Each structure stands twice: as C-alpha cells, then as structure tokens.
C-alpha cells in the first residue's frame, strides 16, 4: 500500500504543478522546430527587457560576410534577482547560441542554450562574485 501510494504520488504531478511549462505563448507559434541551429558570434547589444530578453549577435558567415541575428532569451527578472545586471553580457563578448530559427524571418532565433566558446554556460548561477565554484557571469571580473 505504501509503495503504491508513493509511486502514485510521484507520477501524478505531485511535485510539478499543473501550470503550463512556459508561462505564456507556445514556442511553436514563433519558432520552427525543424530548423535547429548553432550560431557563434559577438554580442553587439543585450536588451534586458520583458517579456523576453534579446541578444543581438553579429555572426561571421563562412564566406566572410557578417549577419546580425536577434536571439530571444528568457525573461530577465529572475536573473536580476540573482545579481545579474546590464553589465553581465557586455558588447564584444563571444558566445555560442544553440536554438531554433524563427518561422518568418531568417535572422531571428530562440536561444535555448547559450555558452561561452570554452563551453562555460552563460546566465547559470549568479554572476562573478568570486564565490568558490562560481561559474557564470562577467567575463572581465
């Protein structure tokens, strides 16, 4: 009886609420799940705005030309509460964005995974506070 109860409890969303995952619109309304991409480029601007933050990225194409991309990220206020600020992703930073391309415009994408070129993840944890094990945050700190 006890085991059954536990299994039932774990399986029926006891731990996760019935609220939809992303607080608002479906990803599929904006982005094309059949067009995954990886973009490596230089940040020209980071807009810490709601409902989505936007990273402006200059990507060098194989032929040497540069394309300006707009990457949709999450809502910033949770990150701001962890100590990130407008200086946490300064222009000039090189990043790698993995995500999916927009359905209607070729130079917009959703950024599901954003890292520094060395693989360190961006926006994880709290920004450079010098704490032991601190991984994310300002590159120049």
């Amino acid at each position, binding site marked *: 009886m006890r085991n059954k109860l536990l299994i039932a409890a774990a399986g029926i969303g006891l731990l996760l609420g019935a609220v939809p995952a992303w607080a608002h619109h479906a990803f599929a309304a904006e982005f094309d799940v059949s067009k995954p991409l990886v973009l490596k480029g230089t940040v020209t601007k980071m807009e*810490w705005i709601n409902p989505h933050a936007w990273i402006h990225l200059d990507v060098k194409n194989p032929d040497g030309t540069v394309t300006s991309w707009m990457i949709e990220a999450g809502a*910033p206020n949770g990150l*701001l509460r962890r100590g*990130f*600020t*407008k200086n946490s992703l300064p222009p000039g930073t090189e990043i790698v964005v993995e995500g999916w391309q927009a359905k209607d415009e070729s130079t917009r994408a959703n950024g599901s995974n954003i890292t520094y070129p060395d693989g360190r993840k961006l926006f994880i944890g709290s920004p450079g506070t010098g704490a032991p094990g601190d991984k994310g945050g300002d590159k120049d700190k």
Partner: protein
Amino acid sequence: MADGKPNLTGLWQAMGTADWDIEDHSAQAGPFFQLGAIGAIPPGQGIVEGGEIPYKPAALEQKKKNFANRFKDDPEVKCYMPGVPRAAYLPYPFQIIQSPKDILFAYEYATTNRLINMGKPLEAATDTWMGTSNGHWEKDTLVVDVTGFNGNAWFDRAGDFASDSLHVVERYSLIDANTMNYEATIEDPATFTRPWKINVILYRHREKDARLLEFKCVEFTEQLLYGDLVRKSNSENPGK
C-alpha cells in the same frame, strides 16, 4: 505623519497642457481633421524654466524629426510607459501612498507605477522606462533621484526627448494641504548643453470618493501595432 514628515498621500493631477508640449505653444491642428475641435491641440504656457530646452545642435535636429513624426513615434500613442518627469504632468491622476518606509506612486495611465526607495540608495540593475528612484527628505521636500533610464520615453507629445544617460532629480513639496509644487532638474550631457528645470503645480482631487481608476490602454493600440498582421480573411472584428 508620525515621523514628522508631511503626508503626500492623495490623488494628484496637474492642470494645463504640458503633456502636449512642455514649451510655450499656440493652438494647432491635430492629426485627424475628422475630429474637428476635439482632435485639435489647445494652447499652453510652457513649464520649462527659462522657456527653451537647451538642446545640443544634433539633438535639436532629432527633436525636430520627432516632432514631424510625433503621431507615429510618440510612445504615448502606443501606450508605452511615460518615463520621468512626464508621468507627473500627464492629463490623468496619480495616487501617492506614503508609508513610513517607502513611497508608492501609482499612475492611472497604463497602470504605470514605481516605488521610491527611501532607504539606502540602490543602483539601477538595468535601464528601464521609469528608471530607478532613490528618495530622501530635505526638510519638508521629498527629493527623488532617478537614474537608469532606457532613453525611450519622451517628455511630451511634441517630440522632446533625452538619451539613456538621463538623470532627473524631482522635488515634491506641499504649498498648502491641497496643492503641491513639483520641480524636476533634467540632466543629460548627451542631449543638452546644460541641466535645466521644469516646474508644475499638482492639485489634489477632492471630489467625494475620488479614487484612482485604471486606464489600461494597450488594447486600444493593438489595431495600430498589429493590424497589418491580422488574417485578412477574418470578416469580423479581430477581437477585443
């Protein structure tokens, strides 16, 4: 108040037409002749000390561009937040709630609101529409220091603007129980040749049961902002 400070709590509103143009202006036509006199712009005495805004030459050119495109580019047309100091002289009321700790300003327009931090000053984490407000008392005057603007708000419907290095210092002081003097010092070395001031009188609403209403104007801008993206085969109104 118990701490000896004047209580600014109340429903306040500026009179005059500063939101149309903070400088002196004559009556003029509006964008739609179909609205006749209702759609026209009334005259107004300016609220800028000294009369003229001290724009740098390049900024003055930008202001003129803004003016020429004002019925399209004014953030107020799109129901965007008004920024500071424009929020103080919009033609709509705002409520001040003064607690012993912090002071809340709630504006009827677009449900804009901001909390004035009266404790240790905090730095702006990001640039925002209403900026980051730190306040303190100088005798009986509430002084609010606002920084961290995103440079997107205008000062009025005439295209007056500033950049994201704008710094505003507001001063609120009661002239009598029902009248408040509002003064703001505007500083932005990227846009103006020197700091300058505006001065507005705020009047307390004294109607029985006067209370802050809600003017959520976003839905009145959707046709404007997204109308060309609506499925054309929709025969009925795209919706409320």
